[in-house]
C-alpha cells in the first residue's frame, strides 16, 4: 500500500474526533491502514453539512417568511458556542464544571451594563480614570470575553486545587456567589434584570436586523469551532486530553498540569463570555437567570446530549435541547413530563450523546 500524503487541512479535519483511532496521524513511515476505505469519515460530512445548512438556512426561511425560526436558530448557535466552550474543559479536559453559567452571565452583563451607561450617557467608571461607555461590539465584546476569562482564571485558580465532584461543587459555589451578587445589585435591575434598548453596533453593521445578527452569530460560531478544533489538535490540546485521561502520568512526564488546565478553564470562560455577549444582544435583555446553576446544568446537558468530547456534539446538543424544549412546550404545558424521560433515554440508550452515537457507530 502506498503512503498517502495528507494535507495539513486533511489532517486537522481528521483530528475532528479525538476519540477515533487516530489512524490518519501517520508518521511518514507508517502505512495508511484505511487507505482503501472511505477517505472522509462521517464526522467530516456531518460537520460540513451542519455548517452548510446553517449558512443556507436564512435563504430558505426568507422563502418561507418565517423570521421566528431565524431568531430561534440564532439562539441555538449562541448556546452552541457556550456549549462548545464548556466542552473544552468538560469533554477534553475532564473538568466537571457546574459554574459555566457564571462566565456566560458575566459576558451578558458586560453588554447590559455598558448599554445602560451608554443609554444614559454616564461613564462606566469614574475612578481611577474616566471611561466612557461604548456601544460598538468591537469594543464591548472583547471586554466581555476578557472579563469572563479573568473571572474564570480566578475561579479556576482556586477550584483546580481539587478535582472530581469537589471541583464541581467549588465551581458551583463561586457561580452561585456571583449570581447572588447580581441579584442584589439594584442599579443593574437585580432579579428583574435589565433591558437593552437596542443591540450593539458592529463596525457600522446594524445588529438590530435579525438577518445580520444571524450571520454575526454564525461567524462567531464558525470562529469558535475552528479555534477549538485547532486548539484540540495542537500541542496544547494533546496535553489537555492527556490530563483528562491520566493527570498523574502527565505530571510524571514533566507537564505542570495545573497551568494547562487553568489555561483551558480560562479559555473556556472566554468562549462563554462571547456567547454571553451574544445572548445579551440577541435577547436585548440580561438577568441573573443567566448565571443561575440551572443554566450551568442546562449547558452541561447540552454537551452531553450532543456528545461529550466531540467537536460538533455540543452544537448539536444545544440545538436538540432548545428545539425539543420549544416543540414540546408548544404541544403541552406538561412538557417536562416528556423532556425528563427524553434525557434519561438518551443517557441509557444513546451512549455518547446523539452526535457521539452517530459517529461512533461508524467506527469498527
Amino acid at each position, binding site marked *: 500500500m502506498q503512503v498517502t500524503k495528507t494535507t495539513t487541512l486533511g489532517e486537522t479535519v481528521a483530528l475532528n474526533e479525538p476519540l477515533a483511532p487516530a489512524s490518519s496521524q501517520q508518521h511518514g513511515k507508517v502505512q495508511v491502514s484505511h487507505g482503501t476505505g472511505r477517505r472522509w469519515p462521517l464526522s467530516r460530512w456531518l460537520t460540513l453539512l451542519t455548517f452548510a445548512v446553517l449558512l443556507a438556512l436564512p435563504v*430558505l*426561511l426568507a*422563502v*418561507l*417568511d*418565517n*423570521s*421566528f*425560526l431565524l*431568531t*430561534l436558530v440564532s*439562539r441555538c448557535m449562541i448556546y452552541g458556542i457556550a456549549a462548545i466552550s464548556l466542552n473544552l474543559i468538560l469533554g477534553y479536559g475532564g473538568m466537571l464544571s457546574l459554574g459555566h453559567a457564571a462566565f456566560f452571565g458575566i459576558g451578558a452583563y458586560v453588554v447590559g451594563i455598558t448599554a445602560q451607561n451608554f443609554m444614559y450617557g454616564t461613564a462606566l467608571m469614574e475612578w481611577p480614570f474616566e471611561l466612557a461607555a461604548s456601544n460598538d461590539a468591537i469594543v464591548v465584546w472583547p471586554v466581555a470575553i476578557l472579563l469572563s476569562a479573568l473571572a474564570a482564571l480566578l475561579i479556576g485558580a482556586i477550584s483546580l486545587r481539587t478535582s472530581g465532584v469537589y471541583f464541581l461543587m467549588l465551581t458551583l459555589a463561586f457561580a452561585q456567589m456571583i449570581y*447572588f451578587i447580581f*441579584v*442584589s445589585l*439594584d442599579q443593574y*435591575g*437585580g*432579579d*428583574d*434584570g*435589565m*433591558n437593552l*434598548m437596542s443591540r450593539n453596533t458592529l463596525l457600522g453593521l446594524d445588529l438590530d436586523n435579525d438577518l445580520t445578527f444571524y450571520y454575526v452569530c454564525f461567524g462567531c460560531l464558525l470562529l469558535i469551532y475552528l479555534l477549538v478544533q485547532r486548539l484540540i489538535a495542537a500541542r496544547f490540546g494533546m496535553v489537555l486530553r492527556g490530563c483528562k485521561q491520566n493527570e498523574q502520568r502527565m505530571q510524571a512526564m514533566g507537564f505542570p498540569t495545573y497551568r494547562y488546565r487553568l489555561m483551558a478553564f480560562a479559555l473556556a470562560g472566554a468562549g462563554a463570555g462571547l456567547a454571553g455577549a451574544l445572548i445579551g444582544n440577541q*435577547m*436585548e*435583555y440580561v*438577568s441573573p*437567570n*443567566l448565571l443561575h446553576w440551572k443554566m450551568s446544568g442546562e449547558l452541561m446537558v447540552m454537551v452531553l446530549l450532543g456528545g461529550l468530547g466531540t467537536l460538533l456534539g455540543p452544537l448539536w446538543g444545544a440545538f436538540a435541547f432548545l428545539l425539543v424544549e*420549544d*416543540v414540546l*412546550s*408548544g*404541544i*403541552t*404545558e*406538561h*412538557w*417536562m413530563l416528556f423532556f425528563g424521560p427524553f434525557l434519561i433515554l438518551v443517557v441509557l440508550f444513546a451512549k455518547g450523546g446523539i452526535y457521539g452515537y452517530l459517529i461512533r457507530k461508524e467506527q469498527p
Partner: protein
Amino acid sequence: MPKQSYVSNPSRFSAVSQRLLPGLCGAALVLAGSSLLSTAVAAEPVKLGMITTLSTKGGYLGEDMRDGFKLAVEQGKGSLGGIPVELLVDDDAGDPQKGKQIAERMIKSDKIDMMTGIMFSNVAMAVVPSVLKDGLFFVGANAAPAPFAGKMCNPNYFNVAYQNDNMHEAMGEYLTQQGYKSVFLIAPNYPAGKDALTGFKRFYKGEVKQEVYTKLDQSDYAALISQIRADKPDAVFYFLPGGLGVNFLKQYDQAGMKSEVKIFGPGFSFDRRLLGAVGAAAEGVMNSSEWNDDLPAAGNAEFVQAFHTAYGRYPTLYAAQAYDAANLIGSALKQVDGKLDDKDAVRKALMAADFSSVRGSFRFNTNHHPIQDIYVRQVIKLDDGSYANKTVSKVFEQHQDAYVSECKL
C-alpha cells in the same frame, strides 16, 4: 376557524408544525399555499397571545390567569366583544429568557395581533419592551413593575391589574389608620420586594423597626421569627409571594406569634388557593386587594359562580384580573369592529375601558394603569371548613400609583 379555537393546544399544534416543516423542503409550497388561503378568508379571528407561568412553583398563578381569560372567551362563545378570537397560551416557566423566546415565536411565527398575560415582573421586563417595539399592543394582566408606569410608559402598554406597589401602599395606609406605632417589614431581596416595602412606607407614618430582605429562595424563617419576637414591634408586614408566604405564615403561627404580634400582608398571599395550603394559620389575618369574591360589583357574583362551574374551584385575584383583561380587550375590539390596523383607534378604545369590571369602578390613568378602589379583607373560615376572604373596608378610593408623574404620556 372552529368555534373551539381558543383552546390552546390545537392551534399550538399548527404553530409547531409550521416550525417543523421547513426542515422538509418540499413543504414550502404547501405552506405558501396555506398562507395565501388564510389571507383570502375574511372572518379571520383576532389572534391573542398569552404568556403566563404554568409550570414550576408559580404554575397555579398562571393557571388561574389562563382560566380567567378563557372563561370570558367561552362566555362569548369563542369571541370577545362579538369579535371571534383565537387565544394562544404558552408557559414561560417563570424564566425571562423563555418568555422572550415565546414572545418572539408568537409575534413572528404565529403572527398574533395583541399580547396579554405575564405573571412575573422579571418576565415582563424581558418581554414587554420588545413586544412594544414590534408595534403590538400589550395588555398586562398581573405584573406591573414600576418602570412601565413611569419612565418607560408606552402608548401601547396597558395594565388592567394594578401597579405593583398598590396593595402594599394600601396596607401602609391601613396600618397608619389603625394606629400601629411600629412595624417590622419583610420582603425578598429582589426589586419587587424592595418596591413593595417602598410602597408600604410611602403611606405608613409610624416607626419602621426593621426592614429585612430575605434570600430569594429562603424557605425556613425561624431565624427571622426569633428576631421579630426579640424586636417586639406592634405589627408585621410581609410580602413573600407564593410558597414563600405559605412557609412564613405557617412558621409564624407555629411559633405562637400570631397572637403576640399582628401580621399583615398584601392579598397575593391570601388567595383562596393558597389559603387551602396555609389553613388555620391564616385565619383572621388582614390583607389588601383590589378585588374580592364578595365585592358587590355588577357581574362579580356571576363571574365567581361561572368560574366555579367551569373549573371546579373558586377564582383568585389573578383569574379576576385576567377576566377583566379579556373583557377590556373585548370592549376595544367591539369599538373598532375587530380592525386592529388603526392603532390610534385601538388605543382610544382601550383607554376608554368601556367594560364592566368585576372590581366595580375602573378607569385608566394617563400612564395606562388603573385608578381604582383598594380594600382590606380578612381571612375567615367558612361553614364547609375552607377559608376565604371577607371584605372589611375600603382603604383607598380612586387610588392612583406613585409613578404617573414620571410618565410623559
